[in-house]
């Protein structure tokens, strides 16, 4: 049985959980928008079955890819590979979040995506009385595609720290929170501060990426694991400075951060 107490978790475990939770929450909000649209327009049974099937497939990928990675790949090679993957992902999230927060890129509008998806699905022929294949496929695809990024983050962060179970639990917790919140607020997912979460996770993924690439290559970071917190501080400060600088030439209304 998996027992977790706050005293058994290190600071890098907490950072890992926060990063996975945030990344999963952002992607799950996007997936939930599609599932809500499929459920409303094509029937809830097919949409929920499609979403559940995608979650099962994603869970299988974590188990089938993540566990062998942890067991059989040398830890230094694994850290360089997952560090590079996290760095590539993190730099992209940071760049996008800076541009959105400063008004150089439109914010992700869940209401607009919801309305467009519903319109597309309603135009897609009559709804089947029993199981609707269109609703199932759209919900499956939405959850699977958004979830793939979460799976990569869970496997990367979990495997590099030998905490695959903890990373998977954080992702599962985020999915549950988003589902509960989604059920309560229904179509008001646009009120979720998606860009702020994305910026926070971008800072963490980039910091983890730099840290693990360095560890895997043989760099001795001052203070060992504690240097991760220094990197997070540096990238957070850089983000504040960049958003402020980018806002000076913003053509669009700026997003909240």
């Amino acid at each position, binding site marked *: 049985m998996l027992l977790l107490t706050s005293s058994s978790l290190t600071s890098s475990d907490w950072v890992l959980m926060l990063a996975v939770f945030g990344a999963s929450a952002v992607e799950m909000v996007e997936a939930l928008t599609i599932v809500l649209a499929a459920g409303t327009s094509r029937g809830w049974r097919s949409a929920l079955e499609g979403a559940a099937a995608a979650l099962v497939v994603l869970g299988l990928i974590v188990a089938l890819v993540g566990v062998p990675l942890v067991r059989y790949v040398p830890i230094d090679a694994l850290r*360089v590979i997952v*560090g*590079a993957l996290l*760095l*590539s992902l993190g*730099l*992209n999230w*940071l*760049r996008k979040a*800076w*541009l959105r927060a400063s008004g*150089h*890129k439109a914010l992700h509008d869940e209401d607009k995506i919801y309305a467009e998806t519903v319109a597309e699905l309603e135009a897609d022929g009559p709804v089947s009385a029993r199981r609707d294949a269109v609703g199932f496929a759209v919900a499956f695809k939405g959850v699977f595609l958004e979830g*793939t*990024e979460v799976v*990569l983050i869970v496997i990367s962060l979990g495997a590099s720290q030998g905490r695959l179970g903890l990373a998977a639990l954080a992702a599962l917790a985020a999915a549950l929170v988003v589902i509960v919140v989604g059920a309560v607020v229904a179509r008001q997912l646009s009120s979720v501060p998606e860009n702020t979460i994305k910026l926070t996770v971008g800072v963490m993924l*980039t910091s983890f*990426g*730099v840290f693990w*690439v*360095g560890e*895997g*290559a*043989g*760099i*001795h*970071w*001052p203070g060992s694991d504690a*240097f991760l917190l220094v*990197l997070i501080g*540096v*990238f957070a400060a*850089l983000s504040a400075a*960049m958003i402020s600088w*980018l806002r000076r*030439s*913003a*053509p*669009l209304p700026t997003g909240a951060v």
Partner: protein
Amino acid sequence: MATLSRWLRVFGRFWWEFLVGDTPELFVATLVVVGVAFALASLHVLPVIVVPGVAIAAVVWSAARGRVPSQANRSPSQDQ
């Protein structure tokens, strides 16, 4: 065989979009960070500054490139 090749194409396209997408400079920067980390690993202080520095320089440059010109700085050709 056709199904396998279709799946390989989809798989390849997914990873290309995921890793390179519309910001190839950040993918290249990641490879540079890995290279610099290995090249400087035997030194003490330098990699601690240079490795994060390369990542910072890359994302700052990429974000600066991604700016949309404000109305005041926009040339007539950019409005077309």
